[in-house]
């Protein structure tokens, strides 16, 4: 009894002094498992780095669940100070003017340095508004790259393909001959649609990929991508490609177990693969179609960004600004990059990681950032479309129908175009 009393007094004493001296803020995120532990570490480092602010990270489930929880909390007036929103949800949160404070404004108001040109090219404008003002700070930034099983490629006597033509004619057949399923991928809308358009510098949506207006129409029904999906069905038929459903890990597992020789996934998957696989592996850039372009361009970032939600007092906003500043620092970025495999978001952090010899030790860790730093084009900045989570659901459904032979490529892309445009016009009406 006595012990409990003492413990209670001690605990009360601690919280009392804690809340007296520090401004406490909350941070909702979607990073589970090992990534979540790294997020906790970042928060702990931030809390230890100064005495004025204390941030509490809270895991809210998947990306979709986190965004939904944030929206519900905002409507109830209980929103967190910082929320992690993923790429497909960006239009929802940026479109709702007044829900968030642009990170650029937040930092400037609190007299902290900000220069958008410090950020690496592929990262800079994805979460920015039409004028190029950064609204959300890129947090876990990744881009699709191609991982390959070095042992498998050696057995087949080939190197990783640079173009899809090379894959179809040389790499694929050789790997199949060597007893492997040559290729799988984990996210058809992200890898084979959004970044397909970016890699080939093709326009993905009207209004400058949706950045400059609300009456956007998707331009997904393009001959180049249709040819790509036609090729996929042929490769699947010929045993050069396999599709294991819409789930991410269902497609990654066969690569890790050594059945599949090459897998298209996230540059952020690096850490996990390294922990789990026993074969030698490396990574290279996303292949492109030479028939479409001879000068492939950069891809843009996927993953998620952090947004400062409005409706909090100045002290809490100052705390959020301090956290953003801490997060963008080269040291934090390098730690985050090394632990998780996500790309560092600033040039300074990239240089620091290189100086520390990280890429000599793990060349595959640099592929994502190299790909993001490739020359850009008119349509490589990203995209901004509302109800995009639903649009991705439509894509996933129709691509699944293509790959199970339920729908032809033409029919599927027509469906995607019609349904996506319907959703976009609905979203435009909500923006009034």
């Amino acid at each position, binding site marked *: 009894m006595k012990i409990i009393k003492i413990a209670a007094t001690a605990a009360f004493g601690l919280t009392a002094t804690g809340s007296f001296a520090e401004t406490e803020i909350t941070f909702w995120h979607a990073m589970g498992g090992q990534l979540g532990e790294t997020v906790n570490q970042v928060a702990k480092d931030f809390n230890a780095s100064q005495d004025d602010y204390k941030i509490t990270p809270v895991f809210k489930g998947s990306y979709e669940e986190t965004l939904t929880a944030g929206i519900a909390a905002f409507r109830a007036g209980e929103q967190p100070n910082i929320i992690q929103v993923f790429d497909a949800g960006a239009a929802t949160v940026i479109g709702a003017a007044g829900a968030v404070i642009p990170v650029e404004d937040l930092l400037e108001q609190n007299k902290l340095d900000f220069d958008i040109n410090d950020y690496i090219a592929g990262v800079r404008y994805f979460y920015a508004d039409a004028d190029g003002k950064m609204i959300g700070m890129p947090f876990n930034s990744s881009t699709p790259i191609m991982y390959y099983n070095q042992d498998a490629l050696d057995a087949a006597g080939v190197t990783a393909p640079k173009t899809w033509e090379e894959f179809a004619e040389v790499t694929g057949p050789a790997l199949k001959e060597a007893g492997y399923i040559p290729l799988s991928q984990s996210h058809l809308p992200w890898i084979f649609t959004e970044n397909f358009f970016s890699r080939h510098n093709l326009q993905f949506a009207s209004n400058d990929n949706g950045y400059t207006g609300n009456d956007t129409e998707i331009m997904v029904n393009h001959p180049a991508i249709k040819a790509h999906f036609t090729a996929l069905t042929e490769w699947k038929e010929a045993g050069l490609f396999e599709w294991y*459903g*819409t789930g991410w890990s269902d497609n990654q597992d066969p690569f890790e177990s050594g059945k599949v020789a090459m897998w298209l996934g996230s540059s952020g998957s690096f850490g996990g693969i390294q922990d789990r696989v026993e074969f030698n592996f490396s990574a290279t850039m996303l292949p492109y179609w030479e028939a479409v372009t001879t000068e492939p361009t950069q891809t843009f970032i996927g993953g998620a960004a952090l947004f400062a939600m409005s409706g909090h007092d100045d002290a809490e906003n100052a705390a959020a600004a301090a956290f953003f500043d801490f997060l963008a620092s080269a040291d934090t970025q390098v730690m985050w990059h090394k632990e998780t495999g996500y790309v560092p978001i600033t040039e300074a952090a990239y240089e620091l990681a290189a100086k520390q010899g990280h890429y000599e030790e793990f060349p595959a860790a640099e592929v994502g950032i190299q790909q993001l730093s490739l020359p850009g084009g008119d349509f490589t900045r990203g995209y901004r479309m509302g109800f995009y989570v639903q649009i991705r659901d439509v894509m996933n459904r129709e691509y699944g129908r293509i790959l199970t032979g339920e729908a032809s490529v033409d029919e599927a892309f027509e469906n995607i175009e019609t349904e996506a445009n319907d959703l976009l016009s609905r979203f435009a009406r909500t923006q*009034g």
Partner: protein
Amino acid sequence: MKRAAFGQIGFPILLLIPQLVIIAIFFYWPAGYAIQSSFYLQDPFGFGSTYVGVDNYTRLTTSRTYLSSFWFTVIFTTLVTFFSLAIALLLAVKADKVIRGAKTYRTLLMWVYAIAPPVAGLMGVMLFDQSRGNITQLLSTFGYDYRLGVNYWDTAAAMITVSIWKQIPVNFIFFLSGLQAIPRSVREAAMIDNASGTSRFWDITFPLLAPTGFFLLIINITYALFDTFGIVDTIVKGEPGNNPMTLVYRVFVDGFRGGDLGGSSAQSVVLMVLVLILTVVQFRFLERRIHYT
């Protein structure tokens, strides 16, 4: 009659108020709100909403995918309800006859009831997994290439199987107690008249079980329509893709995940109307044929 026990109407109403308040807050208020928002198109953050009339409804009737979810839900509900009732009845009849170790059998059969739907779904995912699943491996020895999450009907089969399995224990408990409530004298009289076990079951036992069966029918349809959400969610791993979806899961996918509150409100109103129709039909037509003892 009993009404005489209360002096005036005020007191009984007072006693009912807690219940009425709970119903009003947790049912009528959200239901009314859903009906209202089904006529609007809302910005997810609630900054503005536009009145769109019946747009959200007409959109559903023209959506090929909504209709396909609708028909899938009909098939799903029919199969789950029928098989979970039929298998539970069979098990209950057999368990009722067991004399030695009866309690152990019954406990084992009821066990599954304690499993939460998402856990049941997770076990289903493991059993039906593409590369490691035991059932997948079993089917491949018969030459069938089972692909969960890839093939529409393969995924549907997993959803239906897991949903049936999860519901059998509840039905079993009710059927068993229903069977034990049938008077011994009736059974013995039947045994003298008719030696065939099968016809005794259909002529005597089954009609006497009808009230239990009717109750379970309603419970099971509701279960298949609504409570299977967790199973569906775990089996498609939160990414429906080209897999089947039940109507309830669709409300979640379009509304919560997709942020379209108006559209998904319309979907939930459709569900409400469906349940209303179903309830009226059941009580009007089915219940008349059932005799409570």
